[in-house]
Every structure is written in structure tokens, then in C-alpha cells.
């Protein structure tokens, strides 16, 4: 099997007495989009900063392209592009200046692709960075990263300041990277966002990676919330094994269903005459809840 692009083995990071990363183990393979999800404060940014050699690990192994992230930081950075979670830029430089400068540091130039990206993200590059909103600063970093020719792209909560329209633009460009065979590591605290783009995900909580795998692998952990109104009495649905937390008010019922059993339940619903159907994708919290229920059940 080909060498993984990013490999973390039992990575640890302490800040004084506080252990921010306890055990982070994950790999990102070549050509895959890896989603790194966890709630706020779980250690996503800390992991990424350790990967970039901004922070020094306290234990474990961390390599990118097979090289140590601390020792060979500069070598690695020649083949990598990164967008921080909170982008701050020198207030007296213009967005255009920053983009060009960041490109030049990696020996690259402002190209037609850069101009296209600026168009796509609808950024006024002649404005001073001082006047940019959080989303606009993020755009500057995204444009610089997307127009860098690299092998690995790292995004730390890239859409936290973007509006839905720009989020779509971002997703489009990530897909383009994937098509081009690049590897992407993307952190987020929103499961649905990661779900749409990622091949595999890793879930981090309180400094520990508790689960990695493809989303399909994790279906057993996730439940979709369904709210449905039918023309006939739907109470029979309650009997299905995949249905949980069933409540009924008149002809409206709501319940959670194991994601992999969705088809079975919908098949049972259809003959009842669906008048209104609303499904809410599983959230990260649901995933955690399920995960811990399972752990308890096992022990």
C-alpha cells in the first residue's frame, strides 16, 4: 500500500499541566479528503498546529510525506498549503498584496487561476486587510491556498466565517482538488459539512481520536431524525426495530432512525400516504451520544 500522506501515532501535546492532546492517531492517504471533526476545544487546531511545526509535540509520532513534522518542517511546507481557523492579516497591507506575498514565499506566482479564484470568491483585493470582515480574511487565505500548487491542503474550520454561497464555492474547489488527486485535511465541528465532501472522517473529543473510518463505516453510529405526517394512522411504525424515540401527535409522528435502516422505514411509510416529511441529518452530538451508548452497552 502507498505511504500515507499524514500519519499521526499516539500524538500528545501538553500546555503546562493541561493535556490538550491525549492520544491522536489517524492517517490521511494520498488522494483522499479527510474530515477531522470534534466539538469546540476538542484539540483540532492544536493537532493541526502540531502538524505544521508551530507547536512542538510532547509525545507520539507525527509525519507528513513520511518526514518528521518538526525536523523537516520547511521541506514539508514546500508541498503544503494551509488556511488557519482564525485568519488575521497585517492591517496595512491590501488583500492582493498578501495573496501575492504568500504565493511568492513558495516560489509561485499570481496566475490566471488566482484571478479566477478572486472572481469566484468575489473579493475586493484592493482593500486594506484592516477593513476586511472575518469571512473576507478567510477568503484571502483560501485564495492563496487554492492557487498554491501543493500535494496536501489543510483547512482548519474553513467555512466558519463564510456565507452559504461562499461555502458552496469552497466545496467546489475542494472537489476540484480531489479530482486532481490531491490530499486534503479539513477540520470542522459540523458533521453535515464534512459528510458532503469527505471520504473518511476522524472524530476527536477531549484530545482523543475516538473513531476513524469512512462515513459508511460510521452509519451504525448515526441516526437521522424524521418528522412525518401521513394520511393514514402511522402508529404501526413504532414496531420497526430501527425506529427509536417514537412520539405521536394525531397523524404527525417523529422518531430517530438508524441511518443504514432508512430505506426499510421509508418503504414502510410510503403506503401510509406521506403528506409532509422532514428529515434532520445526524449532528455531531447525536454521534457522540450513540457512541457512548454503544460503549456502555459493550462494557
Amino acid at each position: 500500500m502507498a505511504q500515507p500522506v499524514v500519519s499521526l501515532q499516539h500524538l500528545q501535546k501538553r500546555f503546562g499541566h493541561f493535556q490538550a492532546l491525549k492520544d491522536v492517531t489517524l492517517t490521511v492517504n494520498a488522494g483522499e479528503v479527510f474530515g477531522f471533526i470534534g466539538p469546540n476545544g476538542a484539540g483540532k487546531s492544536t493537532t493541526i498546529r502540531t502538524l505544521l511545526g508551530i507547536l512542538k509535540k510532547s509525545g507520539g509520532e507525527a509525519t507528513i510525506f513520511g518526514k518528521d513534522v518538526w525536523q523537516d518542517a520547511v521541506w514539508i511546507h514546500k508541498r503544503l498549503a494551509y488556511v488557519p481557523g482564525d485568519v488575521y492579516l497585517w492591517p496595512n497591507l491590501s488583500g492582493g498584496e498578501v495573496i501575492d506575498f504568500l504565493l511568492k514565499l513558495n516560489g509561485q506566482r499570481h496566475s490566471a487561476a488566482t484571478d479566477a479564484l478572486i472572481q469566484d470568491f468575489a473579493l475586493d483585493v484592493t482593500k486594506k486587510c484592516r477593513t476586511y470582515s472575518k469571512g473576507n480574511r478567510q477568503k484571502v487565505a483560501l485564495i492563496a491556498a487554492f492557487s498554491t500548487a501543493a500535494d496536501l491542503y489543510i483547512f482548519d474550520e474553513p467555512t466558519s466565517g463564510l456565507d452559504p454561497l461562499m461555502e458552496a464555492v469552497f466545496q467546489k474547489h475542494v472537489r476540484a482538488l480531489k479530482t486532481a488527486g490531491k490530499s486534503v485535511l479539513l477540520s470542522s465541528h459540523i458533521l453535515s459539512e464534512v459528510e458532503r465532501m469527505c471520504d473518511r472522517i476522524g472524530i476527536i473529543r477531549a484530545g482523543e481520536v475516538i473513531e476513524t473510518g469512512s462515513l459508511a463505516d460510521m452509519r451504525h453510529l448515526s441516526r437521522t431524525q424524521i418528522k412525518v405526517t401521513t394520511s393514514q394512522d402511522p402508529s404501526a411504525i413504532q414496531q420497526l426495530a430501527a425506529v427509536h424515540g417514537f412520539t405521536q401527535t394525531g397523524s404527525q409522528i417523529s422518531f430517530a432512525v438508524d441511518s443504514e435502516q432508512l430505506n426499510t422505514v421509508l418503504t414502510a411509510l410510503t403506503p401510509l400516504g406521506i403528506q409532509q416529511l422532514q428529515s434532520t441529518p445526524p449532528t455531531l452530538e447525536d454521534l457522540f451520544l450513540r457512541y457512548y451508548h454503544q460503549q456502555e452497552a459493550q462494557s
Partner: protein
Amino acid sequence: MMTHNANVGQLLHLNLRRDWLKLALWLIGLVGLMGGAAAKFNGLYGTQTAMRSIITTLKAPAMVSLLGPFTAAQPYTVAGIYAAEMMVFMGLFVAMMNIYFAIHATRQDEDSGLVELVRAHATGRNAPLTAAILELLLLNLTAGILEALSLQVSGMHGMTTVGNWLFGAGLAAFGLMFGAFSLLWAQLADTSRDATMMSYVWLGSLFIARMATDVQAPEATWLTVYGWIEKLDIYATDQWLPVGLMLAVTVVLGVLTLAVTQNRDVGAGLLPQRKGRQGASVWLNSPLALIARLERTSTLIWLFGLGILGATYGSIFGTAGDLLTSNPTMAKLIGTAATHAANRTIVLAFTNKLAVIFVILATLPGLSTLLRINADERKGYFEALHARNVSRTRLYASIAVYGLLVAVLAFFCGMVGMIAAGQAVMPHAPTVSHLMRAFWGYVPALIVVYGLGACLVGLLPRWQSVIWIWPAYGFFSLYLGSLLDLPQWATRLTPYGWINNVPVAQVQWPTAAWMTLLGLGLILCGGCAYANRDLMVN
């Protein structure tokens, strides 16, 4: 009006709670300096001989340029000497204190987004500004009262109660006036950094104008604003007019500031902003180029400013080194050749004092650049940079080298300005290479202080601001130290005090060599520590 200032009391309370330590430290420093010096003066200048000799010194043009004119009339008193020595100097400190708090309470809070949060609550449009004004009022009032009281209890010979209170009131009004200037600049400037820069350019210009007029046209000192503080004539005729003038200017500035602030957006200045560049210029392609681009304006101001300061001091060489006019009896006694030699000696001794001022001032832009390593890191500006093809060593080296270069160059500009102007106005002036001894002598001290700063940056990033103590104390100990008769160990606490009396004496090359090596070693040390630690995130 009331709604414009809603909740101002709460805001003031918050500001004071946040700043209390800084306020207390400034007050202790100022009052301690005033009272401490006053208590020491009886011992220093208690005898008639001591008094006569210091008065001759103070009347020399060189000293007038440094400390202001000596205007007291006979019979001389210790208190009269004290007022002459301390006034201009204390004024400088008080002005700096007010600039700091004025900018801190206005634009710095805006830059950090604090004002946005405050204004979203039920606070009036002008409330942050009014709170800043009140904070300055309170600060200066307290400072003035404490200064006057410290003089009262000092037991200095020849002091009067009226003089003591005038001293306190004068400094308070002076400080308030410079605070008010800064509040106005804060409305115009784009960022707090720019507002601070404008404030210091203004203070520096007035100070230079004061110095030039004091030596060459004392009447014109009235026009320099800064010179008003000298016209108080404390412990002699005790003039209250300058206090009134300063307060009047303060009120006018305050009204103006309140008027223009109405037309200003939070976080922006009134001066028109140019549009930014479409892309980066060709040479903006390395960390070194970046730091040069970021520091461009400030570097130019420092180099130019020190050049002007040097030239202004140099232009009084002719007057300073002119025994024929200032002491004709002595000149007649020792003959022409000897008089020229004596003139040169005076100028060389004066150059030593000036070199100390230049080198300490030149240290400031260097250190301020150096501290950006952590300051900009903490603001998150460098995060995107670290993921690029830039090693930490390269980033550190770029900033450290640029800062050191600017510091040395600024010192050089001061010296060159002084020498050029001095040579122009003084016949039989010391040679250029003779005067440049002061440059070669003091550069190593600059490098050591810079190296200490670099070590702090690398090893103790959270404590890096401590480095400002060295230039601040160095300035005090060497500018006033000889007049206050500080013991030798007290002047040796900073590297500036390790240098021998250049340019009067030869440069001690061995000392220069080991100090330079020490400084460079410290810079390397800081670099190693920086390359091997966590960066300052958040």
C-alpha cells in the same frame, strides 16, 4: 448631550480597573523621581561652591539645550537649581505618560474590538472618548497633587509652598495638554499605531523647536508650546500664566476632538485612506521584504527624526564651544590656540552626552521591530506564514537583522546630522573621525541591549516588554545621573553605562569587541530558543 455620554461612569470605572497597575506604576515612578531628587538636592548643592559650579554648568549652551535655560536670579537657591534641572525632563516623561494612556483608552481599545462591544450596549456615542478624557483628568490631577506634596515634604532649601504647587499644577496642565493633542491625533489616524506615531512626531518636533529656540532665541520659545513649561519660573517669580495657556489649549483641543469624533466611524480615522495595491510589488518576496514593508513609514520617521535631532544639537556647537563669548576672561588668559583646544574639549564632552541620547533613542525602533516577532504572532499574523516555505530561523533572522540595522542606522543618522551641522557652524571643530569615536564606542552597547531583547523574545515571550526598562533607565541614569551624583554601580546597570567617555577618550576596542560578541551571542541565543519552542498562539 446626555445620551451621547450615557454610561460614561461605568466605562471610566472599567478603564480604571483595567489600567490601575499601569497608572500606579507611572505615578510611583514620577512622584518618586520628583520627591527623591528633591530630597537629594540639599546634599548635592548645599554649599556655595557647589552651587556656583553647577550654575556655570547649567548656563552653558550645551546644558541649556539639554535641560532648558537657567533663568533664576541671585540669590541662588537649591530649589531654583532643582527647578531648572528637572522641568524640561519631567515634562518629557509626563507627556509620554499621557500619550500612552490617551491612545490606550481610545484607539487601542477600538483596534481590539472592545469599543464595538461596549457601544453595542446602552453607552453613548461619545462615551468612550469622554471616559478617556476623564481618565486623563484624574491621572494628571492625582499626579500633580502627589508631586506637589512630595516636594512639600522634601525639605529642599529655598522651596516655597506656592512654587511646589505651581510645579505640580504646571506638570499636570502640561500632561493634560499633550494628552489632548493625542486624543485629537487619535481621531485622525488610521490605527492606534499611527496615532502613537503621530503623537511622538508632534512631541519630538516641539521638543526640538524648544531646544533650538532656547539656545538661539529664548523669546521665540513661547511659540514652541513645549517651552511654556520653562516660563513658569518656579521658586522665583512663579508665573501662573503658562498654566492658564496650557489649560486653554487643552479645552480648545477637547472641544475640537469632540466635534470631529462625531464624523468618525469606530475603528477608522478621519484622514482619507488610499486604496490598497492590486497585488504585491516585485520585491515583496521574502520575510525580510515583508518586515521592511510593514515598518517602512516608521523606519523613515526614525531615521529622519534622529537626523534632524542631531542636526539641531550640532547647530549649537558654535555657541556651545565658544569660550571667547561665554567666558572671555578665561579665553584671554589661556590664549587663542588653547582656547580653540578648550572649545573642542567642551564640544567633545557635549558630544558624549548627545551620543547617549541618540543611541538610546535609536534602540527604540530596533526593539519595537524585534518585539513584533511575538506581538504579531499573538495577533495571528504569522500563522499563514509558518505553513509556507519559511523556516523559523529565517523569520527570526529577518526581523532581528532588520531591527538591528534600523537601530544602528538611526544612531548613525543622529551622529551624522550632529557632525555635519557642527562642522558647518563651528570653526576649528573636532575632526569627523574624532567625533565618530562616540558612534563606534556606543554601537556595542546598543547591540548588547538589543541582544537582551532578543533573549527575552526567545526565552520569555510573555515578559518581553520588560526590555523597555533598559533604555528608560539608561536614559534617566545617564541624562540626569551625573547631576544627581548617582553612584557608579547605578549607572552600570545598563550596557550604556559600560562605555568609557568617548569621544573625549579613545574607543576601547577590546571592550567594544567583547560587547559586540556578547550582543551577537545573545541574539543567537534568542534565535535558538525561538526555533525550539511553541509559538505564541492566541
